[in-house]
């Protein structure tokens, strides 16, 4: 995942960056698998790697990449970048060493066999409202895309 992430930001060719992003997303799916969340891993592969990245690739291929490949790569905000990265890394280390009471039991609940059923019960039972709001958000996005792409309204 780290290699994929580094390749995303260092490649000059945007198609290579998009492919490195696919590798990163697949690595993320395997991290979900290691955390005993097979459903999220499967959905990550279907939606992210198989859907969203295809759209990314469409757009990248329709935009001419010759100009962007001839541009010099610059990195003029490296001071702010280093400060932000150090702060984030310090936060990670702090949570890892001192924050053991954030998650009450140390081991992850191994609910692998009926993971999907448990997710479904939670999603359509306790979090139904959030689910409906998210689907309304997606509907607004679809309507917006159709309106923007129509020839005459």
């Amino acid at each position, binding site marked *: 995942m780290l290699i994929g992430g580094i390749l995303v930001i260092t490649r000059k*060719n945007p*198609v*290579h960056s998009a*492919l490195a992003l*696919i590798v990163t997303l697949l690595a993320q799916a395997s991290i979900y698998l290691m955390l005993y969340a*097979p*459903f999220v*891993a*499967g*959905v990550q*592969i*279907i939606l992210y*790697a*198989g*859907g969203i*990245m*295809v759209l990314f*690739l*469409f757009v990248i*291929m329709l935009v001419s990449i010759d100009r962007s490949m001839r541009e010099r790569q610059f990195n003029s905000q490296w001071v702010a970048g280093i400060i932000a990265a150090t702060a984030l890394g310090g936060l990670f280390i702090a949570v890892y060493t001192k924050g053991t009471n954030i998650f009450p039991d140390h081991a992850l609940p191994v609910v*692998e*066999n*009926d*993971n*999907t*059923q448990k997710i479904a019960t939670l999603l359509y039972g306790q979090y139904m409202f959030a689910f409906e709001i998210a689907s309304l958000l997606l509907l607004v996005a679809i309507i917006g895309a159709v309106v923007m792409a129509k020839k005459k309204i």
Partner: protein
Amino acid sequence: MGQLVQYVQSYLKSNQTPGAAGNIFWMLVYIMLVFVGLSVAVIAMNWLERKILAHMQVRLGPMRVGPHGLLQPIADALKLLLKEDIMPTEADSAIFWCAPFIVVLAAFTVFVVVPFGPTHAITDMNIGILFMLGVSSLSVLGIVMAGWASNSHYPLIGALRSSAQMVSYEVAMGLAVVSAVLMTSLNASGTGTLSMIGIVEAQQAQGEWFIFKFFPLGLIAFFIFAVAMVAETNRAPFDLAEAESELTAGFHTEYSGFRWSLFFLAEYSAMIAVSSIAVTLWLGGWLRPFPHWLGGATWDQIFSFVPGVTFLFLSAITFFNVVRMPKHPYFRIQTIGLAGFGAVLGFIGLALFVPGVRVRIQDIFWFTAKVAGFMYLYIWYRGTFPRYRFDQLMKMGWKVLLPMGLGVLLLTACVGLFQQNLWHR
């Protein structure tokens, strides 16, 4: 040596897939078996497609290379291996090299969860069907990469069209799959399952194949999936992206020799994979026909003779053709070859009558027979239907199949809920 035989025998009595048992040796053996079986199936599909298309068009097809063209696929494979490997200049060589690799990877990895029997799968994930849909959607990426890396406009247009078509029909496929998975939850506890073996066992427990359940809802869902799977694998009548008369050869124009054969292998493997999904979800997987209506031990016994009888029938047809071969000395080797092939089929048929083999093979046989039926349907569609134009294709995917899929899903949910309420009053 004795220990090895003992180890083999002790495993054959087990009732778990190798993945569930955590047994790496047997997992590797199953993987090799599936890989070899798949390669043989792709080669056979090549020959069968040319022969069956030819017979549908009232001509003979390949007849020269072996007896009745049986060695034609081997000749094709040799030709492809020996061809010069051309890479266009200005092509992005890294992506050009990776693209067939990704398509083949996606097409072959899917077979890890395909259930050939209650314990005959490489593993049985509890997100089986989700895994299959997800990994088969990774092949779209390979196609887009192939079209881009060729650095020429015909492959690019072909790749973009092909991937747009595949993404559109994935939605319809997903809805049909969801309505079938919904039917697995119509049991006492009210929980369904996404695992492939679980879906077939649900059909066994409910006593009917899902294609006949809540008639006609199961049938419509099956129909949506059957149309979407043909479009998903870019086969006729949805093969505008690779139609020779329109776009040279679509996204694999610039690929020659071995790389093209990888695309070809991946296309046929994807066909077999989506057919296995259809067979598992609607046609009862490895269950023999009429599992409930003609149930009982005697009918099981009668149906268990069918594999052997099928192979003996095929060998009888082969020997009939041996007799019909021309009696010219040039055809002597071909006649002997065909007779040998017939003898092999006969031996397999006789071997399938042995009681121990009969019981374990029949699950695999019924599954393979149903998938073979789907392959025949694929070839039949290619020989029958004219091609869809691209805008008609996209219109059908979004405006016809998607609303139908949503409707079937809603109706299946309503009818299923009604049935559950009637049971648990």
